[in-house]
């Protein structure tokens, strides 16, 4: 595993990380080894986020770096060899709310922690969550909402999942004004105050 690549990513040296990736691949390194280094680096960034050493800028930029590396690596990947995932999660910002930054960070952190995330985007209707849970077989749903107007759509989404008979699906919620009061109000199974909390909750359910 390339320590040089891991260091470039965790130090947020964006251009170096992409250049090192190309150098490694050109020198015969396997795409899988490069992605393993990326995973290691993302784990370090995630841990720093958890301990208060990394913040939103690092998570967002790490996501950008990873996307650039993936664009270089993926054409050289052979089919198959997908990692075994911890579980499937359907994620989205609830109906009426168009904020995506926190949801994107949660999705990113869940992804690098081994979950298969289906991100439905923003302003997602309850029926869309139900339909996607059914089609993917996901057992976890993550509902994001930045504004107070998200409280009722979150509640309606939880109700819609239950009404559709998806009683074995667990729902976690999060966002700017979300707390234990709102968890009780919406009937969700858990709320998380940040992306690491979302990962911890999802792992406890996986």
């Amino acid at each position, binding site marked *: 595993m390339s320590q040089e690549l891991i260091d470039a990513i965790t130090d*947020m040296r*964006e251009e170096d990380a992409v250049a090192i990736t190309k150098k490694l691949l050109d020198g015969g390194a396997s795409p899988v080894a490069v992605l393993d280094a990326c995973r290691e680096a993302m784990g370090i960034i995630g841990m720093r986020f958890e301990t208060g*050493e*990394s*913040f*939103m*800028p690092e998570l*967002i*930029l790490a996501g*950008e770096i990873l996307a650039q590396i993936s664009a270089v690596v993926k054409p050289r990947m052979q089919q198959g060899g997908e990692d075994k995932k911890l579980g499937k999660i359907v994620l989205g910002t609830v109906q*009426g*709310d*168009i*904020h995506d*930054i926190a949801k994107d960070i949660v999705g990113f952190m869940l992804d690098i922690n081994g979950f298969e995330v289906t991100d439905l985007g923003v302003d997602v209707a309850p029926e869309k969550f139900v339909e996607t849970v059914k089609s993917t077989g996901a057992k976890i749903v993550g509902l994001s909402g930045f*504004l*107070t*107007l998200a*409280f*009722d759509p979150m509640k309606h989404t939880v109700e819609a999942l239950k009404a559709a008979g998806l009683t074995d699906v667990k729902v976690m919620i999060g966002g*700017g*004004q*979300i*707390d234990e*009061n*709102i968890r*009780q*109000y919406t009937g969700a199974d858990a709320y998380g105050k*940040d992306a690491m909390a979302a990962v911890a909750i999802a792992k406890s359910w996986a």
Partner: protein
Amino acid sequence: MFIRPDNWNQMSPLERRQARLDSWQNAPTPPFVSPEAEKNYRERISRVRKIYDMAPHDRPVADLFMGANEYIVRRKGFVGKDVIYNHAALREPTLEFHREFQPDVSVGAMPYPGKPWDMLDFKTYIWGGQKLPDNLAIQAVEGEYMLASEYKEFAADPTAFWMKKYLPRAYGALGPMAMLPDFPRISESVDTIDLLVPFGLPPFQEMLKKMMEAGNELMRILGEVGQTGAMVVSEGFPGMGFNIVKTPFDYLGDTLRGTKGILMDMYRHPKDLLAATEAYVPVLVNSIVGASDRTNAPCAMYVLHKGADGFMSQAQFEKFYWPTWKQVMLALYEEGITCYLFIEGSYNTRLEYLAEMPEKSLVCHFDKSDMKRVKELLSDKFIIAGNVAASLMSTGTTDQVRAACAELVELFDGKSYIMTHGCYFENTTDDKIRAFIDSVRK
């Protein structure tokens, strides 16, 4: 309008602050509806004044503005679209609310100018009756209204950038603003040609026509909103007295670069970002002092966003966010303007920075911060406000609201404290509003 006393240049910052507060407290009012209304008004504004002065006073005030400004009309069946488009209709429920609940200070829906937004094709927000469902009011649309490659251009002349680049991008109808001349170069006799050319061209004239029509519509709205405001005052309810502003970093982040853009710029374009925040300082100081003079408001209300806990590290806060913000606030302090900080999210890791500011320079209004630490670190120097959770007002019980408010009243006993919500909410109950208002009354 605030008129500076003749001895302004000899006054200390705190004396200037007193002069601005005097001017606000003693400003002319519309005729009161009754002697009792006048007595209530004087008593209420005097209580707020004592709190702003950090002088002994009988009790805290409860301010509903940041939380319940829409609820007061929603409780009568009005929805978000009405707040944007139906200003005159909001008058009766607004007055009814004040008569029934007798709040300490006035509360009213925000005067969103829906029709002018439509006329000018405003793009940085969406709203009820437009792209949002009718029941909702307004949401910001994050976007990149300035490219990273344009930082230097912005820093060279923020005002020109705003007029010629930002406005055409934010308002579809204002594209021809890009044709404006470079004003500081209008000097020699023939430069009048450069000054006037755009004004003679059809696209620019068409834009001016639209702006004048939108301006007329705005005046109609302001007339309706102003009349409601005056009637609220005449029934005995003063306002808190502030203009809304932001930090240099938040203007750049919220408005020009977007959250993702500016947070990544700290790594990708750190020098350009710093230069832009620095270029903003004199522009902001002039603008806020001018607005404070025009409106006679003693406070500049900062709506604070990207400096909150979690958005950036202490080192990043110290490098990119705090220095220019502090410079602006110190300049305002020198001008006698109190900075009212509406701190969205939590600010537990930033309290020590606020403590660097001079005594009485700040009102610190919290949303989700640790109020025990706030008391310990800030309450001897500054006025404290807030932290009644919007979630509690929306979904908690009346007893829970009562208990949360009682805890805050007890915590800030003997301090200058304003009971407020940390965030706006659409729905609550009359009982919870009453519990909130009553919590500060002995």
